[in-house]
């Protein structure tokens, strides 16, 4: 932007102002249209389906609430360039653009009964805090308070028996549904009386409520102008991820404390503190109330399921994928599309038939001892079946990526197909094997539904089922202990990822660039 033209010599940079206003108004128009479509078209459409939902209303409300700030940000960003040449000019331009936009939006809100002009539950009077209680300053004539004969000068002390100040009173009013009775306890002329006021839906005409809004708008614009742009992605990312981080933070804190409020650890008396290791007692063979199985037995079960699942999935999918990728045989295409369909098949629908299969297998001598009902490997086998379609497709993709020439070369060098598969191809798809292996291991380690269905007796449960049993016992639930068991279950996962990450990087850096 050049600042040599005459207009730019003034205190306001007019071209920038126009761009800023244009940007802001564009956002207003787009968002208004979106809200209109949501409220006016989608909502009736959804309603006609007789489905109860609040998503469209919520979305349009969010649009309306977020709209002004997006508009200010857009108009503010138009001024960013001007900061480099003249800061006062930039500030003035931005302030004027914001005020104009704010006025337009406020008028729009007023006309459409939105934002601060939206009708809310009200008892139509104004109050102030005093030492004795909440003093009624004014009453709208013919309004809800007036009908209930609330007089100016009354001092409200409580709603029913709950003492109130101005803020809690306003909140209670706002939260109560329309036409619900509020029994106010108040002092009139030194006497305590009770008055029941029925809330009504009323639009606030309190224009002073606009002022904080304007301050917010100016603040947002100012931040937009001076915001260092390179941080934006991190802030957005952090905002989205913060619930996750907080969740894990809670998990860790909870395992080491007696109890928690939010993520703040508390001791028995409710003071901050209360560090304890007693939640981890289960590691040292001390029984958890109501359960009589060692955590190590449970862990071993989990491990057997996860490891056997990983091994079987890796062997079977890589071999099947090799055949599908490299060989032509009748039914190859049909098999491929069939596995794809199977991948989308919900496991739950097969729970009962599989139960019969496992139960019958369990009665078969020898085999039944290994893969039957209520055996870790049998349970793993069921989950293997559900993971194989994905595994086969994933591995096939990796095999497809290896040039034919390498395989031909190995065959000419004298290798059989088995050796080609084992010595030449498998080492080249190690990253894929590792990914699928981790996937299968975690699938087995965290499995709940299948182990829960096909294992009975305390000795056969795996960690997730064990966790569930901790909760479903009738005894009082010790959430901090459950957090500790949960964290214990997470440990191998962490280790696996730390190890695998390095391994994956190694392979990608040096392994498979040999061919062009």
């Amino acid at each position, binding site marked *: 932007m050049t600042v040599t033209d005459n207009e730019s010599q003034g205190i306001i940079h007019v071209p920038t102002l126009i761009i800023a206003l244009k940007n802001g108004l564009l956002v207003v128009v787009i968002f208004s249209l979106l809200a209109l479509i949501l409220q006016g078209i989608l909502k009736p459409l959804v309603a006609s389906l007789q489905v109860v939902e609040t998503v469209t209303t919520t979305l349009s409300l969010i649009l309306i609430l977020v709209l002004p700030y997006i508009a200010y940000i857009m108009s503010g960003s138009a001024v960013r360039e001007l900061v480099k040449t003249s800061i006062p000019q930039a500030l003035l331009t931005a302030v004027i653009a914001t005020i104009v936009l704010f006025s337009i939006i406020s008028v729009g809100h007023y006309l459409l009964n939105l934002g601060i002009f939206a009708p809310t539950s009200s008892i139509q009077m104004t109050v102030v805090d005093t030492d004795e209680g909440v003093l009624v300053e004014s009453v709208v004539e013919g309004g809800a308070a007036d009908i209930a004969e609330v007089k100016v000068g009354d001092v409200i002390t409580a709603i029913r028996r709950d003492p109130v100040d101005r803020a809690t009173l306003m909140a209670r009013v706002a939260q109560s549904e329309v036409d619900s009775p509020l029994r106010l306890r108040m002092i009139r002329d030194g006497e305590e009386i009770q008055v029941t006021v029925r809330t009504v839906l009323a639009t606030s005409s309190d224009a002073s409520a606009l002022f904080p809004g304007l301050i917010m708008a100016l603040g947002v614009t100012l931040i937009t102008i001076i915001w260092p742009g390179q941080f934006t992605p991190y802030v957005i990312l952090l905002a989205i991820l913060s619930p996750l981080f907080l969740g894990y933070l809670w998990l860790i804190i909870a395992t080491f404390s007696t109890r928690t409020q939010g993520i703040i650890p508390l001791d028995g008396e409710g003071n901050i503190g209360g560090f304890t290791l007693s939640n981890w007692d289960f590691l040292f063979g001390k029984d958890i109330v109501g359960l009589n199985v060692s955590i190590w037995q449970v862990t071993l079960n989990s491990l057997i399921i996860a490891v056997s699942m990983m091994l079987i999935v890796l062997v079977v999918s890589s071999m099947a994928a090799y055949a599908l990728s490299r060989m032509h045989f009748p039914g190859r295409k049909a098999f491929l599309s069939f596995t794809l369909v199977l991948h989308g098949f919900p496991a739950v629908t097969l729970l009962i038939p599989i139960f019969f299969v496992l139960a019958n297998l369990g009665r078969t001598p020898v085999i039944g001892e290994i893969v039957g009902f209520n055996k870790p490997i049998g349970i793993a086998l069921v989950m293997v079946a559900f993971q194989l379609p994905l595994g086969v497709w994933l591995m096939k993709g990796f095999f497809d990526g290896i*040039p034919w*020439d*390498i395989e*031909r*070369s*190995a*065959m*000419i*060098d*004298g*290798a*059989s197909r088995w*050796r080609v598969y084992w010595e*030449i191809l498998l*080492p*080249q798809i*190690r990253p894929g094997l590792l990914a699928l292996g981790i996937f299968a291991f975690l699938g087995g380690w965290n499995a709940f539904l299948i182990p829960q269905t096909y294992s009975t007796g305390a000795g056969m449960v795996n960690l997730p089922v064990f966790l569930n049993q901790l909760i479903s016992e009738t005894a009082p639930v010790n959430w901090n202990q459950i957090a500790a068991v949960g964290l214990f279950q997470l440990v191998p996962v962490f280790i696996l990822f730390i190890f695998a990450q390095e391994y994956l990087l190694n392979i990608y850096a*040096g*392994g*498979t*660039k*040999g*061919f*062009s």
Partner: protein
Amino acid sequence: MQVTIENLTKKFGDVIGAENLSLDIKDGEFVAFLGPSGCGKTTTLLMLAGIYKPTSGTIRFGDTVVNRLSPRERNIGMVFQSYALYPHMTVYKNIGYPLKLKNMQKKEIDERVNAVANTMGIGDLLDRRPGQLSGGQQQRVALGRALVKEPDILLFDEPLSNLDARLRLTMRGEIKHLQHDLGITSIYVTHDQIEAMTMADRIAVMSGGHLQAFDTPEALYDRPKTLFVAGFVGNPPMNFINVEVSASNGHFVATNGNMSLDLSKERGEKPATAGNSVVMGIRPEDIQIAPDGTVPAEVFVVEPLGRENLVDVRIDGESILLLADTKADHKRGDSVKLKFNMNKAQFFDSKTGKSLLWA
């Protein structure tokens, strides 16, 4: 090892890969399969390697029919265009892999790998992985791996295509030299006719799955038997002009519009019997721009090649390529006179595409 191919055919469903090929390759010979892409040369090579099974026909290595033998039973070495090195193995292991598969002793493997690596000039790279090598080095490793098991036959599938022009020139000489030294029967697939011409003892020109010609480079160049061979072999390519060849009183003349060219008896006698459906072929180096030329033409574009200029001239709108001295300094739009060396002219039947001179 002598290689005999008889009536070899390969079909992929309805698609013909190669049809009715018959070739005799002598022991120790270097043969190139030359043709445009999709002509069936690589298909034929892969049948020789045992990767593809022939639909019909026979392949003999020496006296043995190898049709049903797997690649490992054929004792061949092959070099691929993509080098096809095993990326997860070091150079040493790559070269030693064929020997390992033969269950050879570690000590012997070590000796042979080192010997081959030193021959190929990659003795100092044995601990590296293919990904850490340049294209030329990878090429040498691939060649070393093919040679280490002392194969009876060496197969090359466009091995130089992925190298830069300069390296290609060097490797060309090296492969030819090496093949000569070792005396291993070699079959070399390429679409680059310069490679084929410079390296091969004999060239099999292929097109559309069929063998067009199988002869020495000189014979293919000087005595092409078909229009396709004449057009494919030689760079810049041969010029083709539709002419009518007539004889009167023992004089033979090729005419096209205003152009009239005298022919000797050896060249003119046979084409004269074919009447007016004759295509005359003449190589760019057999046309000169000379003041005493007989054919008027206009210079269309001049491409300097360094040693000479490639000049595109137009005779009645028909494009003719010729090579001219750089000193002559022809310019676009110049009117020039052309002189044809008619003793090098080729004549083909325009319908069958067969040569009228070398039937």
